[in-house]
């Protein structure tokens, strides 16, 4: 084995950026989307703990696709301060520490994550030679609907036997072979 150098490069975990906000659907003079901070409305509106779907609301969030067990909005969102979240024991927690929140229910995933066996990453497997960047929960999972949606797969392989290449007609003998379904 090589002798371990004293310095290991850092493992950076991506953080959700900034304060949480919703897209207003409008654009500013520079053409950037106008985002509205949660507290803008929630400072004056009364929370309804029964609601757990966007279409039950009269304004805002109607299009929110929600599929996350039997949770309601206020299971995670903090009714006393919408710029933060809260844990199951009602302790306030910042949006950037979302992993701690998810890990309350998803312990297996959190354990795997801590051992580098869950979640995407880039950079170096060998931290003696370079850093690594890892995703946090919400980089891959929509917190309101964490199950991955259906996606259209990338191109399938084009085998010489099953599909003729351009300008390379398949030979007669290959036509006797079973076609791939």
């Amino acid at each position: 084995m090589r002798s371990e150098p004293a310095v290991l490069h850092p493992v950076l975990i991506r953080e959700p950026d900034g304060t949480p906000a919703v897209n207003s659907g409008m654009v500013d003079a520079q053409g950037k989307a106008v985002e509205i901070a949660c507290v803008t409305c929630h400072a004056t509106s009364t929370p309804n703990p029964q609601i757990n779907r966007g279409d039950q609301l009269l304004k805002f969030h109607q299009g929110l696709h929600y599929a996350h067990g039997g949770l309601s909005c206020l299971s995670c969102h903090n009714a006393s301060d919408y710029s933060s979240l809260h844990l199951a024991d009602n302790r306030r927690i910042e949006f950037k520490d979302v992993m701690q929140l998810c890990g309350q229910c998803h312990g297996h995933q959190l354990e795997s994550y801590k051992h580098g066996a869950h979640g995407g990453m880039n950079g170096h497997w060998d931290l003696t030679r370079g850093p690594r960047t890892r995703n946090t929960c919400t980089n891959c999972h929509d917190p309101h609907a964490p199950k991955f949606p259906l996606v259209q797969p990338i191109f399938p392989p084009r085998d010489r036997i099953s599909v003729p290449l351009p300008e390379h007609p398949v030979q007669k003998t290959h036509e006797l072979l079973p076609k791939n379904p």
Partner: protein
Amino acid sequence: MSSSSTSGCGKEDCGCVSRRTVMKGVGATLGAAAFARAIAPLTEWVDTLSVDEFLQRHYKELSLVDLKVVLRRLEKETKEQYGADVTISDTKPQEGVKFGYALNLSVCNGCRKCAEACHLENNHDRPSNQSYIRVFEMQKGSMDMEQGNAHYDKPVPQPDKFYMPVQCQQCEHPPCVDVCPVEATWKEPDGIVVVDYNWCIGCRYCEAACPYHARRFNWTKPVIPKEEINPNQGYLSNRIRPQGTMEKCTFCLHRTRNGRLPACLEACPTGARVFGNLLDPQSEIRWVLEHKRVFILKEDLGLKPQFFYFFDS
């Protein structure tokens, strides 16, 4: 024949030609013709095979100086044939490292992003959608790779299916290496099975021997637009392969031997892949092997892959 000046008929100085002389002449003519015939294919190859390449020694017999010359020549040929400026290096295996790869079948959703990343990273032929990774759509409850469908084209994941990406498993006892008649493929100290593309004769014995369908053959000269060529290349990995040679996954050794993660892992949107050093007890891959339900594809063949599949418990 006593006298050296006697000729064909035995009489001295009669001028006729001996049978021996005739046979010598005929033999020489035939020999020259046969030699010309034998090397005829080479004359047709001139545009794709340089004399230097034809005379190049096996990778393991190249001195460091020879290798440098070869790498520069290959860079020059890539520039001539593809118009791209590339750097071809040859990073050696590290002491105390043996690569291992694990893939989580509980989360893989069959999107083929890994196959696409491989296609781009390893400078694969564009028209054939070539890639070292083939993703099989498998019936839940079955583990028979031969029943898997690699050509699925519906949105994934389908409810009754699971998805199993298969690439080279870097076997401990690689059958592909055993069958190669010219020793153009071998297992490196860090466990990667590599091919010397300039030594390979394209007989495809290895392709037939591999139970994982992990080897690919270049039927045609790879076609890649020059702006899409990945310029960071390795002699034993992703340099553009010549026509008529075998190729295979090398765990992106031009990246991983420099400490980086393989391209397929970085591209995976579900985080299904775990890569690391099997000899390091603290590594992620070792944790997976010790804590997850791990299985080996076609374990009964006894090839001892360094590639593992696991399920979340």
